[in-house]
């Protein structure tokens, strides 16, 4: 399932996938895979992404009803 909330939060801060990838210490392809729903990140990576984007885990990663 695509993670459009992550994509929107990233775009909201005017960050490219590469910028976010560098900020959290992963490859651009990993951010792309998370947004496409091809990869489920570990909780540590989720927390890193939330910190950089200023969001909570619920806002970005909790499944929507």
């Amino acid at each position, binding site marked *: 399932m695509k993670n459009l909330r992550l994509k929107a939060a990233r775009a909201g801060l005017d960050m490219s996938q590469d910028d976010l990838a560098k900020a959290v*210490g*992963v*490859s651009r*392809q*990993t951010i792309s*895979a998370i947004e496409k729903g091809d990869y489920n*990140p*570990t909780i*540590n*990576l989720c927390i890193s992404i939330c910190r950089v984007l200023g969001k909570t885990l619920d806002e970005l990663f909790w499944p929507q009803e």
Partner: protein
Amino acid sequence: MINNFRMIGLAVGIVVGLIVCIVVFRIVNTNKKLTTDYDERQERARGKAFKYAFYAMMIYEALLCVISSGIEIPAEPIVIHFSVIFVGVVVLSIICIAKDAFAGQNTNMKRYTIVMVFVTLINILTAIMAVSGGIMVEDGKLQAPFCNLLCAVLFIVIYAAYGIKQLSDRRDD
């Protein structure tokens, strides 16, 4: 006596190869570390790639056992063993490339390509010299220089796979 010289030659070759590998890693890695850093997704993808490479090597080794029990393989043992490594590395590299887990976080792909093109050319040159010197095949058996040809083919296959992946990624973007 000739076998002893050959063994010493191979041992020296392996040591020189290891030293070259250390130098290459220091050149290719942007932070001059000897190890390549991969992120968590890449580590996972590489784990799967190693698994499939292991299966491929097992199947190939089993096939070689069956074939060599029936007929004599027209190659020196070093070529046969090297071909097993070749199969493993090809499977590992292609899966890693397909899953974006080939280049690490600290890999400078431009420097990597330059070094690998250089290594490929040296291997091709060695293979050509072996063919022209008539030492590629002796007594109807493939000799050690055939490993250079295998090495060159290995790198060409890796470049081709990497190029195809880059093209398909550009198309997706």
